């Protein structure tokens, strides 16, 4: 993992913990399923996306939501968007 993706992982984790303060940082792995492992539902995900847009300035298009099912998916998507 590069320092940059580590930083993005931190941003994603920060956004998730903001929405789901009952979780702890150790719950959040790249492989964690947003719904099955972390219990986030569609409204939580909108709030996570809002927090990420605030933290990173990157907006996740509506069409991408269905594909971003794990913490790592979010990290990879945001990394790709930042690089493009």
């Amino acid at each position, binding site marked *: 993992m590069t320092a940059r993706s580590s930083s993005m992982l931190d941003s994603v984790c920060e956004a998730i913990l903001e929405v789901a303060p009952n979780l702890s940082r150790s719950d959040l792995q790249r492989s964690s399923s947003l719904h099955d492992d972390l*219990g986030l539902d569609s409204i939580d995900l909108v709030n996570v996306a809002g927090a990420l*847009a605030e933290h990173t300035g990157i907006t996740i298009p509506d069409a991408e939501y269905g594909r971003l099912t794990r913490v790592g998916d979010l990290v990879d998507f945001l990394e790709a968007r930042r690089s493009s």
Partner: protein
Amino acid sequence: MSEIRLPSLGAEMEEGTLLEWYVQPGDEIHYGDTIALLDTEKAEIEMEAFESGTIEALLIEPGQTIAVGEPIARLVSAGAGAPTDASAPTAERPEPRPAPSEPPERPRPEATEVTPAPSPAREAPKEWRPEAAARDAEVAPPAPQVGRIKATPLARRLAAERGLDLSRISGSGPHGAIVEADIPEAGSSEPAAPADAGTTGASTASAARPEAPTDASRSERRREIIAAAMTRSKREIPHYYLATTVEIEPAIDWLADRNRERAASERLVLAALLIKAVALAAREFPELNGHWRDGSFHPSEAVHVGMVVSLRDGGLVVPTFADADQRTLEDTMAALRDVVGRARAGRLRSRELGDATITITSLGDDGVESIFGVIYPPQVAIVGFGGIHQALRVEGRLHGTQPVLRATLSADHRASDGQRGSRFLQSISQRLRNPEQL
């Protein structure tokens, strides 16, 4: 001079614990300001001011547990003169909430959107008052008591009216509390005894509790409340159940178009459409929107939609979206994001726990196809939504699949019949097929 009283934040709430004051004597407050943090069995709740004025005195300390309707502070109302009657006996009158049309004085997203629910109370139909507090209005003024018997305010009133001794009645509610169903009908064989003045009316403050309950104990208590409410529902309400399949593709496509290129903060999710569709249908079918109380149905002119929110540590809360039929989808979505987030963080505000007139439950994110809810008394209907799934579609000789959603209705047969329930569901379905009209 007026007194600020502990509001009822739901039909099952009997008492609350003050965790923190946000104000001090001398502070000027406005309607809608958060003035205290309360702990209830459901969650920590930020209590809002229902009246503007200046705090004259705080009557309870953090850690103290008191009954619904008890005074917690004295307020010099805005525009009033100096306090002259600090001990005025207003105990029998619960703290009223402003009329729904009265806007909060401090702008805040949900404070401007969520207007208080109108009361179904018979004596003041246009004035919102928390349900239990409204019932307390009919109870004798609070009296100190020793060895308090756990009983709901309604059970206490019924017992007093029927001349029954609460100490001789077994309770079936949480922690053995005596509930309405435990009170024998007048004229039954239950041994009657003059009601002890010490056991009628609301309780006075109980012993101070130094700390809020732990998450585990709150979760346990929450489970007991749910158990009691659902048991009562299944015992008292003759449910009937209906289901229909909704073509949800138009709504999905409309949402995709609507959300394209929009910022995350402006996105809509399907739940907002479901709330609005149910609210509009509820307005069209008043026999499904209201409360069953005292042996008859009381329809509500306003539509206040309760939304079941699952908590991450188990259990659920049901925040209310007041006047949901009159909100725009954008308003509904903003409130949904805010309220659901705070509900799960355990920080709901008092106005968000007003009495809903109909409830929605959805397990769409969890993959089930349909859910038949248990009606939340005293409401008379609950609408369930399952997850979106693909269903076979046949048109002439063409076969294909399309996304569909199962919508269900659990309704109280005392208040409505299956045909009307069926039309209600079809109304929801039709509205979801035409999302641009929501």
